[in-house]
């Protein structure tokens, strides 16, 4: 009897002191934060307009959201947005999720990409390689309404070996809140570059 009591006490000690200790140790794991979804300014919370509007499930041109071009499979707004709670999204099983957990939504169809995103192979992370990281959300790079990555303007061509002294100045450009310094070439050089590029193109066609 005494032994049983002793065992129970030991078990209680383990449960109340040791286990929470283990859980506390887990907080040493680097923190994971995500970026914020890129809402158009003033658009969120959606309920500020939609609360007083009855849901309309018909496929139609949206008068208030003309910038939204839906090119994402056969989806329609309410497949992802919730008609009852406008400030949330809903998964296929009906669970509501906030906008900054959108990866759960995307992962329903893009499971292989979701798996890669969780291990850091797909997508972008910033912060510390051996510390706290910020994970970019799917919607930071892909517009959820037309997710194909849009072409962007490249930064200036590097100078050719004989033209490395023909840099007039370097000017700042701000990309993702980071200041980069890009070269401005002498005009004559620009033209020469263009010519060379055309030549380059024609020789490879």
């Amino acid at each position: 009897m005494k032994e049983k009591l002793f065992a129970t006490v030991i078990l209680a000690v383990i449960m109340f002191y040791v286990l929470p200790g283990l859980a506390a140790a887990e907080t040493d794991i680097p923190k994971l934060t995500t970026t914020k979804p890129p809402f158009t300014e003033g658009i969120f919370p959606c309920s500020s307009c939609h609360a007083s509007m009855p849901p309309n499930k018909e496929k139609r041109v949206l008068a208030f959201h003309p910038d939204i071009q839906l090119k994402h499979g056969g989806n329609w707004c309410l497949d992802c947005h919730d008609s009852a709670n406008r400030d949330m999204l809903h998964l296929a099983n009906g669970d509501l999720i906030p906008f900054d957990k959108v990866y759960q939504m995307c992962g329903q169809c893009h499971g292989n990409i979701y798996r890669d995103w969780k291990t850091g192979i797909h997508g972008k992370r910033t912060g510390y390689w051996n510390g706290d990281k910020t994970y970019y959300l799917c919607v930071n790079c892909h517009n959820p309404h037309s997710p194909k990555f849009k072409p962007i303007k490249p930064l200036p061509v590097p100078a050719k070996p004989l033209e490395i002294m023909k840099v007039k100045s370097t000017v700042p450009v701000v990309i993702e809140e980071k200041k980069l310094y890009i070269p401005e070439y002498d005009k004559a050089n620009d033209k020469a570059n263009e010519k060379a590029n055309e030549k380059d193109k024609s020789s490879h066609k």
Partner: protein
Amino acid sequence: MRRRDFIKSAAIGLGGLLIPADKSDASMWERFFQKYFREMTSEEKKTVAKKLEKDYQDKTGVAINVRTTDSQPGVKFGYGLDLSRCIGCRRCIYACVTENNLSRKPQVQYITVLEFKNGEKWVSDLEESRKYYNHELVPEPGHFYMPVQCQQCANPPCVKVCPTKATWREPDGIVAIDYDWCIGCRYCMAACPYGARKFNWAEPTVPPDQFNPNTHYLGNRPKAKGHVEKCTFCIQRTRENPGKYPACVEICPVGARKFGNLLDPESEVSRCIETKRVFRLKEELNTNPSFFYFFS
């Protein structure tokens, strides 16, 4: 006077003549007798870093911090680059130029982004690639892109040829250069099969207001004419604890660049190597790079 004394005093006298009278202060002597970085004790490293900080302050007018952080135990840096994502936007090139205080004029850039037409000769033979592509928008349809920078080889050909041992491989896998030990012979540039090493053909210039003041002795501290330099995986960022990602990783708009510890099975690079199709550039040359290209 004995013959031996004569030679001694003559040598000292001649030695004194070699140093110009107007510059022969104590710092000149210190600079002349500055030790090889790998032979310095940590105290000496600190002293030299202090002196360099003062030199750079005088030269550029910017308060520059020179660190000499050693490599961390249990760390081997690895880099992953997803060729199925890269769009050739060149943001990495200029993030690198800005972070590493690379000379603006003459232009020095560590990263080269190559463009290939789909189906072109590739990897073992880069002769069809274009470095000076100039499109309005990228990616150009029907093309793909491959950035090349220092591959931080485990068997680096550049280190073997250096006549002054100015370049070597650090325990964390970074191939480093002691710029003050470099004589500018450019043997390493000839030996490198990746064209990763760059030469300062003229006195490098960086406008003072564009200077990144956080530097490392083996990394982005100001260089001089005649120094060879190259990518160091942003040693000034990655050697810290916690260490930031390299600048090129942080700027990549498509998340094609991965960085981490190869000895940590949970790191992004290890995960890529484990689960994706990976190759290393010119692997047949037995350079054993720490830079892994992959397709996701």
